[in-house]
């Protein structure tokens, strides 16, 4: 039973990908198969979370696949966002008048993407984790280039080159860690297994481990959108189809950050907490500063959302730098809240893009009077992202600030939240310009070929509403997942 729970998250999306490869994309039938498999995936994640909370870590395939509370929490996030993205995909593809051939490839790659992320969070071994993270780059390359425009292909190129190089650097870090582990007396099979690594961490050679951990954090950090190798993020997130942007921003970035957390759990006992705290604080502040500055003069609303993702990743990196249990709890809650809210923001931005045939903020005016439903959902998602209660991000940002202050990092916290305030002001101003103001006659109405855009129906609004409800529910009460969250924070957080 446990084995099934562990393998189904990888098997289900693979089966869906096979189905699309065999049967193609049919708007009325197979289009909904992906929704069903991801719904089962979500149920599976809940089952796994319950098992792990009750019995502790479980594993299969000789320890290559392993789930503890942290993996289960991440899998819940992957499943929730994947469900919303698959649910929103048929409407997105129909509104974009996608050909059946492209829709089929889109569906195949989308489900392979979900399978790769599920593998990454269930990997029991840093090597498998690395392979899965690299696989996400490969399968999403063509999803980023889905629209085949010049900008989309350019974004895809940059994405593959920068992310592959960054992740290769992370691999160099893992190789050196393996080298250090072998000389600490671990056998070949154990030397990348983090349960074994963490328990032998104090025997690792500090000089080699320092180089190894630095490279691994920089490499995985690039995939999480942290400076210095962040340049792919705004391009890829703004050019990809909206459901893909939602998945990339809502769960792929957190999955990369999860890899950083796993590496950190090995590094701290080996090197002391100071080394990664310094490195991550520098990366976090630089990322926050860059995102805040570039948000001010942003003219494109999808890029605005992308930079907002960088801002949130900076905050998460700061929480990781603090590293106490309170900080990790807040980090994980923030990850989930941001994932859901950003998914809704990206999905609604996709609809806004279809309505206006433009992603420029200036082309969208007075959306609140023209399309109150869409404007409301977009606005609420932005409010949640800005950290207004009752969304989960309010509680988590408070938690991060408090944990950082408790750990004596008030200087860094002050700087970080100053950047957050700048980003807040910029996003509020841009969103206000999109939603409010008097309607102009030129705005809205026609797609590039002159036909009227598809109507934003209530059915298309359902996944967005569900996502918002999720983000709010997490902010009000953790309910049954509180125990899981505590256990997850215990696995990587310092007491």
């Amino acid at each position, binding site marked *: 039973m446990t084995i099934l729970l562990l393998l189904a998250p990888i098997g289900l999306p693979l089966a869906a990908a096979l189905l699309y490869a065999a049967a193609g994309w049919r708007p009325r039938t197979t289009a909904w198969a992906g929704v069903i498999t991801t719904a089962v995936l979500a149920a599976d994640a809940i089952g796994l979370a319950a098992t792990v909370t009750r019995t502790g870590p479980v594993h299969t395939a000789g320890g*290559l696949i392993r789930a503890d509370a942290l993996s289960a929490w991440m899998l819940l996030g992957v499943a929730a966002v994947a469900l919303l993205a698959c649910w929103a995909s048929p409407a997105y593809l129909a509104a974009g008048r996608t050909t059946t051939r492209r829709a089929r490839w889109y569906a195949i790659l989308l489900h392979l993407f979900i399978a790769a992320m599920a593998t990454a969070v269930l990997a029991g*071994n840093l*090597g*498998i984790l*690395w*392979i899965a993270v*690299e*696989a996400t*780059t*490969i399968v999403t*390359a*063509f999803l980023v*280039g889905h629209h*085949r425009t*010049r*900008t989309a*292909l*350019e*974004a*895809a*190129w*940059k994405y*593959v*080159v920068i992310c*592959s*190089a960054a992740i*290769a*650097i992370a*691999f*160099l870090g*893992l*190789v*050196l860690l*393996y*080298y*250090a582990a*072998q*000389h600490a007396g671990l056998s*070949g*099979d154990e*030397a*990348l297994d983090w349960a074994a690594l963490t328990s032998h961490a104090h025997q690792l*050679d500090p*000089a*080699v481990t320092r*180089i190894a951990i630095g490279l691994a954090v920089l490499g995985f950090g690039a995939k999480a959108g942290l400076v210095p190798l962040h340049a792919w993020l*705004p*391009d890829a997130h*703004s*050019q990809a189809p909206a459901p893909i942007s939602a998945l990339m921003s809502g769960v792929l970035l957190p999955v990369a950050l999860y890899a950083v957390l796993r590496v950190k759990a090995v590094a701290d006992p080996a090197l002391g907490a100071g080394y990664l705290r310094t490195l991550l604080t520098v990366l976090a502040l630089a990322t926050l500063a860059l995102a805040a500055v*570039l948000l001010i*003069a*942003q003219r494109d609303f999808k*890029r605005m959302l992308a930079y907002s993702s960088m801002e949130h990743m900076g905050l998460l990196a700061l929480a990781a730098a603090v590293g106490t249990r309170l900080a990790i709890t807040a980090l994980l809650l923030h990850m989930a809240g941001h994932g859901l809210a950003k998914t809704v923001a990206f999905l609604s931005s996709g609809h806004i893009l279809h309505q206006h045939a433009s992603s420029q903020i200036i082309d969208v005016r007075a959306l609140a009077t023209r399309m109150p439903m869409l404007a409301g959902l977009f606005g609420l998602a932005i409010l949640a992202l800005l950290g207004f209660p009752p969304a989960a991000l309010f509680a988590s940002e408070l938690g991060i600030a408090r944990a950082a202050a408790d750990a004596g990092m008030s200087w860094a916290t002050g700087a970080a939240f100053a950047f957050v305030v700048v980003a807040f002001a910029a996003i509020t101003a841009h969103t206000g310009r999109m939603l409010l103001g008097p309607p102009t006659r030129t705005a809205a109405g026609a797609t590039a070929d002159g036909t009227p855009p598809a109507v934003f129906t209530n059915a298309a609004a359902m996944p967005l509403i569900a996502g918002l409800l999720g983000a709010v529910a997490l902010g009000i009460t953790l309910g049954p997942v509180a125990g899981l969250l505590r256990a997850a924070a215990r696995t990587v957080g310092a007491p």
Partner: protein
Amino acid sequence: MTDTSYPLYLDLAAGLFLLTAVGVLWRHQLAAMIRLFALQGAALAAIVAILGIHQHSLELILVALGLGVLRAGILPYLARRALGGSPAEARETRPVINVAASLLAAAGLTLLAYAVTRPLVALAPSPATAILPAAVAVVLIGFFTLVTRRRALSQVVGFLLLDNGITATAFLAAAGVPLIVELGVSFDLLLVVLVLQVLTTRLRNSFGSNDLDELRELHD
């Protein structure tokens, strides 16, 4: 192979490995760069094979064969196919940093590699770890090529150099990572190159050129 000649062969292969990376910085012609990359793949396979013979490990020798086929055969072939049949396009015309400066930078990066690998060599001194600096130098030169070249294909070659360097580091330091990881890595690498090849083809078909200098629609 005797114990005295083993370090000799290893040094020779490592020398060729580093020299080909420098050669890539020196040559302008993309076809020549790919030839040098194939030669480097052969040098990498030789390093692994020498390690395998020395340790009497059949597994390592088989891995060396596989590496040779992939890095000296399949990857250069794919890169050449991405080049297409147009010799006029096949030059790195305006690198961000000119050749003389690039070669100086390569010398600097090699020195840097020696400096940063000192703790690695100190952990377990042996003929194999003694040439770790060469492998790390190739990693740095690969990264340098990646960021200073504008042509799509030179960037791919830079990425592949980076990867060769990392593979060499893995084998020299730890006689390779576990086989399942090594297989996954090789497969991922192959897929990355295939993806990049398709993207260059699409870029060229749609827009007539794959000079990344022309890729500047996206910026802030």
